[in-house]
């Protein structure tokens, strides 16, 4: 640990790969964290019962009990830690089980051990949103449906899971879908949900052999697209900065390009009448 500094947080690493455990522990201790290690599920459960952990780095494939059961236990203790699931098992079933049990993130092995410090730092910085629950309505690979609080951190968390499900797509398709999803989800959370974590956004991701369909329903009243002068989509053809100047006048944060970008990335975008629900489709 760095000299003369208070510990930054307490981490539990749960993995039967002792070499990986030691490597991760050394990196995290150098970064100022206090680290405990457990080589199996029962040891991990005992340590979790004793409490005091901020973050758990949890392998799914443990020798005695499933890491997913340890995850469920971690979420049931008095002060639940943030749990980052790490595994080489990237099947949709394992991923969705982790989502259902409220994993904060899903790290696919192998990963560079050096990246873990930044991942932990990020998780610690998002402790408030990490404690928020994502309701899993449907956890089938063909039909994922989630209900989540309207907090910006949620967009990253949800996207990290949803895009793992699209891992087998060509890179360009995956990147385009990820960006479209992120833009529309951020719009729903920021404009529809007013960044109020008591309000909820509902997300459905449907996969068939021929298309991907995403539906995002926000709790807002909708909008009239023709009146969005602060959106780039309404700029005159030869004035790409008009929306930015209007946003400055109205005290709105920089942006306003989301709809324009999204339209270019997917095959169809459909809004409901109120425009508080949107679907986009990418044909495969």
């Amino acid at each position: 640990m760095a000299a003369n500094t208070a510990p930054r947080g307490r981490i539990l690493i749960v993995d039967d790969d002792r070499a990986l455990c030691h490597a991760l522990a050394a990196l995290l201790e150098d970064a100022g964290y206090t680290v405990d290690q457990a080589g199996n599920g029962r040891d991990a459960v005992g340590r979790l019962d004793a409490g005091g952990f901020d973050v758990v780095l949890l392998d799914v494939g443990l020798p005695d009990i499933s890491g997913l059961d340890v995850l469920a236990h971690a979420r049931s203790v008095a002060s639940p830690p943030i749990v980052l699931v790490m595994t080489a098992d990237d099947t949709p079933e394992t991923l969705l089980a982790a989502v259902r049990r409220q994993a904060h993130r899903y790290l696919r092995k192998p990963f560079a051990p050096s990246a873990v410090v930044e991942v932990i730092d990020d998780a610690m910085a998002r402790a408030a949103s990490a404690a928020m629950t994502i309701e899993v309505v449907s956890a089938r690979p063909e039909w994922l449906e989630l209900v989540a609080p309207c907090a910006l951190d949620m967009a990253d968390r949800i996207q990290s899971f949803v895009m793992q499900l699209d891992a087998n797509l060509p890179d360009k398709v995956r990147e385009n879908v990820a960006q479209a999803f992120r833009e529309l989800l951020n719009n729903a959370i920021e404009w529809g949900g007013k960044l109020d974590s008591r309000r909820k956004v509902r997300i459905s991701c449907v996969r068939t052999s021929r298309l991907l369909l995403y539906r995002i329903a926000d709790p807002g009243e909708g909008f009239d697209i023709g009146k969005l002068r602060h959106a780039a989509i309404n700029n005159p053809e030869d004035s790409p900065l008009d929306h930015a100047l209007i946003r400055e006048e109205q005290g709105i944060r920089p942006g306003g390009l989301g709809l324009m970008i999204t339209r270019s990335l997917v095959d169809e975008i459909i809004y409901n009448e109120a425009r508080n629900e949107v679907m986009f489709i990418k044909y495969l």
Partner: protein
Amino acid sequence: MPLPMRITERRVGDVTILELDGPLVVDQGETTLKTWVDRIVEEGRVNIVLDLGKVTLLDSAGIGMLVSKYLTAHRRGGRLKLLHLTLRSDYLMHVTKLFTVFEIFESEDEAIRSFGIEPSGEAR
């Protein structure tokens, strides 16, 4: 997973080069960029090159911040120009028609010369 954006600053003559490394997206990176550019513009350094070669993620909020800081520098009599766009950044600049607003370069020397100075820092 997005990690925090880092900025490295260098100066060549009166041109400030900011190398961005990480995500430039809503709530991550965009505020770091705003704070950094506002500070150097306040110090009178209004000729700026943003090197986007290591930007790992760019969204509408990040592009919006590029536009906002372009306007900040322009209003103080300077210029903000872009360098080393990734394929994705280049695509987004075209989709949003902002390639007609920003001067975009593939070479740092070329970007520096566009301000009327040599890469050695001497005025041309």
